[in-house]
């Protein structure tokens, strides 16, 4: 019988990677991802995890090592944040175009400059178009669970795309949460060994990564686009199977009190938990405010999102990154795009909050909703900045 253990989320994530029987761990230290990789190196050196731990000399090489290993047919893992993600981003695009399954845990951290080791989403938002499947975890249990889901989805023959699991740096990585661990036997049943479609092996020589002349490049990209567009039903199925085995069912979008709510707050990541408390506070004074948490970021769950906000008049979107010179935050611009063709559209107001680790309290949500109601039109603003 599974019992809940209080565990630092980073450690839980590493334990999940061990239980997922990863073959290759290639990572470079960067705050706040360090505990995950440190624990993995302990597990390897104590013989608890049979994997090759490759202490690479940069994140760029971490992703390159994972790409080579995945091409050889190994289950690969890397973990990074912020600057490290951007440094490896050159190869991140290649991994998805080459359709190589692997798992990246991304401990979301702000991008320089100024240097900040603290949490926001500017790192992951910089690689929106990279072609990986991406989810945001809201709490420790989700982080742990999605290591298994991540590999299961990535390696699915109907999918074959790499997977990013986002968790907020420090806010999730360094906190102790109750985690219900999965029995190894259940993990093994859910996640069989990786069977690559193609592998680099002399018995069946293949060429991977040709150059694409103009006459064929579009076709290659169309194939990649189609691949991403067809993943949704398989992701849902993978979640369904996980739920059947563990009792924990996940959806692309998580709703809280949206029935009949005229105002809906939209969040991604751990902010959702804080927002839940804020919403309870507002409901306590008879304010009908709902919460929509976007778990699946790529492919964006257009249908599920539209359904979740149906009937709302005001959608207040929380962004943890700025798109300079653009329409505010990246999440809000995607949400506006999702709603554009709807017959009746809610007003979309965008707050940029929690940059570089700035604390966000439940009370902040109350203020933001008040402000959104008071000021007409659609706009964005950085919340909590001292003027």
């Amino acid at each position, binding site marked *: 019988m599974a019992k809940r253990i209080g565990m630092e989320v980073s450690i839980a994530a590493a334990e999940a990677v061990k239980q997922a029987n990863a*073959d*290759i761990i*290639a990572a470079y230290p960067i705050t706040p991802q360090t505990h995950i990789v440190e624990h993995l190196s302990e597990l390897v050196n104590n013989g608890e995890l*049979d*994997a*090759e731990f*490759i*202490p*690479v*000399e*940069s994140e*760029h*090489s971490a992703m*390159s*090592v*994972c*790409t*080579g*290993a*995945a*091409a*050889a*047919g*190994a289950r*690969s893992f890397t973990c990074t944040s912020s600057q490290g993600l951007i440094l490896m981003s*050159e*190869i991140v695009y*290649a991994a998805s175009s*080459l359709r190589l399954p692997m798992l990246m845990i991304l401990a979301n951290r702000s991008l320089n400059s100024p240097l900040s080791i603290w949490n926001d989403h500017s790192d992951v938002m910089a690689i929106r178009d990279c072609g990986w499947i991406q989810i945001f975890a809201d709490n420790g249990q989700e982080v742990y669970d999605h290591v298994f889901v991540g590999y299961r989805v990535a390696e699915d023959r109907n999918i074959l795309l790499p997977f990013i699991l986002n968790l907020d740096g420090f806010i999730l990585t360094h906190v102790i949460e109750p985690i219900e661990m999965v029995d190894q036997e259940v993990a093994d049943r859910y996640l069989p*060994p990786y069977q690559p479609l193609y592998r*680099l*092996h*002399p018995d*069946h*020589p*293949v*060429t*991977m*990564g*040709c*150059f*694409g*002349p103009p006459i*064929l490049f579009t076709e*290659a990209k169309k194939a990649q686009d189609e691949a991403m567009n067809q993943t949704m039903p398989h992701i849902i199925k993978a979640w369904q199977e996980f739920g059947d085995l563990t009792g924990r069912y996940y959806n692309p979008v998580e709703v809280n009190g949206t029935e009949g709510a005229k105002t809906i707050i939209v969040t991604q990541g751990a902010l959702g938990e804080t927002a839940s408390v804020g919403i309870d506070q507002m409901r306590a004074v008879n304010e009908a405010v709902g919460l929509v948490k976007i778990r699946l970021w790529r492919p964006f769950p257009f249908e599920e999102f539209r359904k979740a906000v149906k009937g709302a008049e005001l959608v207040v979107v929380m962004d943890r990154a700025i798109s300079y010179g653009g329409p505010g935050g990246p999440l809000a611009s995607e949400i506006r795009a999702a709603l554009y063709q709807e017959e009746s559209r809610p007003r979309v107001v965008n707050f940029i909050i929690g940059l570089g680790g700035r604390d966000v309290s439940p009370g902040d949500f109350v203020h933001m909703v008040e402000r959104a109601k008071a000021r007409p039109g659609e706009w964005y603003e950085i919340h909590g900045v001292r003027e």
Partner: protein
Amino acid sequence: MDTYLDRLNVYASRLVSQKEYFVPGHRACQGCAEALALRLVAKALGRNNVIACATGCMEIVSSPLPLTSWDVPWIHVAFDNTAAVASGIEAGLKVLMRKGRIPTRRINVMGMAGDGGTSDIGLQALSGALERGHNMIYVCFDNEAYMNTGIQRSSSTPFGASTTTSPAGTKVHGQTTWKKNMPEIAAAHNIPYVATACASYPFDLMEKVKKAADIEGPAYIHILSVCPTGWRIPPQSAIHAGRLAVETGFFPLYEVERGRYRLSVDLTKLRPVEDYLKMQGRFRHLTDEMIAEIQERVEKEYRKLEKKVEMTSPGSAD
């Protein structure tokens, strides 16, 4: 009259396997000695081989979708990460064999890149891979510039050479720095095997590649690859140019095996560098002063190398 230093092996051509793992139909220029070197490397490594390749001439000419010149597994990812990708393949195969998911057997893993992809943009990944001690061969095909993008200079471009980004102008006369010594950088990582080679000495090259493959741990081979297009020489002179590079001491052929230096071609006297420089368009603008400077430096470097051979020979005081 050229002395064919490989005459001892001249009749061994017919003993070499006729199987090609890098097949004809590739799009290299006429007379490309880099393609020749690659052909010989592939021949020496044989079937049990997985190759990670950097962006560059050899990548482009051998992999135009939907065609491939490769009869062995081959992957191209990017320009700057060959050694890292090769590390990943090596580690991946190792762990898969250890876990019994694929049968255990010897498979060579090779990373290949040009001079740019090795001594410039790929240096970090190479250094990391060598330090970590992966069991792999790294081959640098050095045509002394970024040839595929249009003959721009690299840190491997020899002093004085005219390239499109170090042109022979009226104020500055070509490349202003001396060629980066990549084999020495590799040797400084204390890896079990480092060697230099040239396709003009084909049997020496193939022997070194086989040796590198047999050695446990990282091996580095630096191959001078004559590029008629970029060096401005007629295509048919490609092999001749390579010989001159070796005979003048410009590109000495040697090995460093577990720290022991050994010359592959022991030249009693170096040919004047002018013989090598004057036959190439990229050096046509050199003044007598520059040639003298080059001559002096080449001799100095060659003497340094001979000293290392002496100091590391068995019986010498360590």
